[in-house]
């Protein structure tokens, strides 16, 4: 998740950015015109407010800032950083931001530092419509809460000044969820030559020297854990919070596999993963969903393969800085309510991610788009990206199916372990081995 954003931005520069800017400018003009007619709250236009937002950036999109300016008159200054830099800034430079767009596992690390203020759910207009993964932790009343830093476990604190995470939903929310997804392995269906069903299939001797996993310790270890558990090497108490012994077993197994020549490479950035897959250097590897789309956009078959053991999920949200008060705080709440009101949700859903309030997003998507992205049905017409590029042609079905099938099959969430430092040290050993 960390470098994905910046890399993504780098790789989509050029044509798409230009069309994006054009589109955004058009949208801004349109919305500004509409604003005059329908009389949007003009308070921020008279008394200009700027909110400084930084974050890991999947949702740090210029289009959102433009639309926000047009709809609310609030200027959003967005800065995209990697997750390590975000964590550090939230803690050490509390006055350098107003809104932090961070992942839930980062929240677990930084919220206790006391530089963010919990939000009053009474002021969140769509609170009751937020997907329950983020409140109760259960997608449906009978689903099981996945391992790792599940968003509901760090989603609430006990009171307005509390830094202690609450076990059940309270009135005080740490982050308002924005974007989340379920990750799995990407494959080249034309080159694997057999059905891929389990995480352990990456260990198949037939793929010797043709596999890859990502070299970002906190995420790579989770993919490794899914593989080890699938292969029956070990059964974890909690993949998201391993004991030292579990870390040792996992890393020792990885080192053994590496020495046997199973891996072709380890990738660190979005475009590396795309190139490895597109060039045929690897046929099965850890991947992020936009990378799969990027490979496919080159006309090369690539599938984001659903696996029996389930997905590794991640999620992010918006937090408000402690120092915000008065008009700025009101503006922040207004921004968050706007964020959940549908336009952004539709934008994110069209990229293959998921948004926190589905009912409002649905109203901003065509029925065909909704059926394709959220219900897992075959596309009736060509499916376009938010920038208007064809992503899927008519008849295509989304890998993994519907929202319920994908988010209902989450095995673990990205997390931060108590033995984090030990894990990173052992991970470096694996890379150096």
């Amino acid at each position, binding site marked *: 998740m960390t470098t994905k954003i910046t890399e993504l931005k780098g790789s989509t520069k050029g044509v798409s950015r230009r069309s994006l800017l054009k589109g955004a400018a058009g949208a801004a003009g349109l919305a500004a015109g509409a604003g005059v007619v329908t009389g949007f709250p003009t308070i921020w236009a008279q008394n200009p407010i700027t909110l400084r937002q930084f974050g890991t950036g999947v949702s740090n999109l210029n289009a959102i800032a433009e639309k926000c300016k047009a709809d609310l008159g609030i200027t959003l200054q967005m800065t995209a950083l990697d997750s390590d830099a975000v964590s550090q800034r939230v*803690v050490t430079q509390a006055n350098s931001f107003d809104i932090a767009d961070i992942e839930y596992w980062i929240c677990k690390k930084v919220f206790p530092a006391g530089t963010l203020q919990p939000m009053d759910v009474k002021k969140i207009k769509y609170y009751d419509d937020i997907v329950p993964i983020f409140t109760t932790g259960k997608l449906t009343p009978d689903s099981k809460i996945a391992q790792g830093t599940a968003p509901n476990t760090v989603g609430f604190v006990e009171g307005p000044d509390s830094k202690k995470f609450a076990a059940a939903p309270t009135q005080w929310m740490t982050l308002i969820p924005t974007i989340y997804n379920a990750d799995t392995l990407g494959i080249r269906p034309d080159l694997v030559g057999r059905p891929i069903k389990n995480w352990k299939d990456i260990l198949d001797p037939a793929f010797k020297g043709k596999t890859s996993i990502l070299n970002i310790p906190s995420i790579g270890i989770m993919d490794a854990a899914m593989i080890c558990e699938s292969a029956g090497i070990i059964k974890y108490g909690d993949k998201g919070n391993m004991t030292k012994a579990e870390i040792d077993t996992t890393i020792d197994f990885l080192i053994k596999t*590496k020495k046997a020549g199973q*891996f072709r490479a380890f*990738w660190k950035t979005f475009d590396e993963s795309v190139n490895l897959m597109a060039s045929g250097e690897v046929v099965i590897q850890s991947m992020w969903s936009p990378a799969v789309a990027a490979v496919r956009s080159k006309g090369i078959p690539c599938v984001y393969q659903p696996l029996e053991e389930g997905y590794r999920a991640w999620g992010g949200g918006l937090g408000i800085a402690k120092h915000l008060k008065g008009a700025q705080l009101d503006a922040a709440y207004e921004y968050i309510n706007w964020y959940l009101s549908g336009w952004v949700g539709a934008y994110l859903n069209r990229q293959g991610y998921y948004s926190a309030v589905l009912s409002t997003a649905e109203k901003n998507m065509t029925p065909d788009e909704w059926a394709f992205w959220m219900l897992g049905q075959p596309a009736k017409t060509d499916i376009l990206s938010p920038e208007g590029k064809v992503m899927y042609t008519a008849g295509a079905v989304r890998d993994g199916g519907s929202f319920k099938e994908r988010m209902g099959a989450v095995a673990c969430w990205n997390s931060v372990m108590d033995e984090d430092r030990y894990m990173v040290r052992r991970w*470096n050993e694996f890379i150096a081995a």
Partner: protein
Amino acid sequence: MTLSRLAPYLQAGPLTAILFAFLVLPIATIVMVSFWDYDSIQIFPAFVFTNYEETITSPVTWNTYINTLKYTVIVWAITLLVGFWVAYYLAFHIRSATTQMVLFLVCTIPFLTSNIIRMISWIPFLGRNGLLNQSMMSMGLIDTPLEFLLFSDFAVVLAMVHLYTLFMVTPIFNTLMRIDRSLIEAARDAGANAWQILINVIIPLAKPGIAIGSIFVVTLVMGDFITVRFMSGGQSASVGLMMANQIALLQYPAAAANAVILLIIVLLLVGGILRIVNIRKEL
């Protein structure tokens, strides 16, 4: 009187200021931070030796240093051989000074592009479905693609030799050009053959150039991280890469300690080279 006394200080002043601000201060900061303490998100001023302890006692560090030294020795040997060869040809076999300069400039042409581009362009060439494998297969030389060409030590060394050979050519060429041709004639008159001239006359006189080139190559390879990462596909480690990882995880003090150790080792290597060859005497 006073002005003439002051003049040398004034002349040395600007450089001193620049070196102080951009060399001494940063290194002093790194040394200072290397004794600080840290947790997963912050660093604290302190005076602890844990960073050095953890670095020195970890087998990962040793393996990484050995690996980096291995690259250094191999790359140094190959660039020396190739570099000397090229410089020798330029200096002794090309008669006209104009042609010499033209050919020397030809050597530098690849440097008009960034070294990352020069390195990355190897990847599609060496890959499993890359140009080299495909042409060899269509010529019937091999049946299956050669896998060791990319994401291997071979690829790392190849890219480094490509990137760094010129740093060897330039100083050696420079010293070879200064060799008094009458010395070679004298040797020939005294009955030495070409091989003896090379060993007993040219190489000893080229030592300063070789030493300077070696210092360039050794320091560049020891500090490299991007070539190792891209060409080994993340499968090999180098000291620079280890530091980059630590910085990414906000473990600045650990990275600083590593940097200090690397600095000491590189200085020792450079010191060793300078002990063997007295550069100043020859310049």
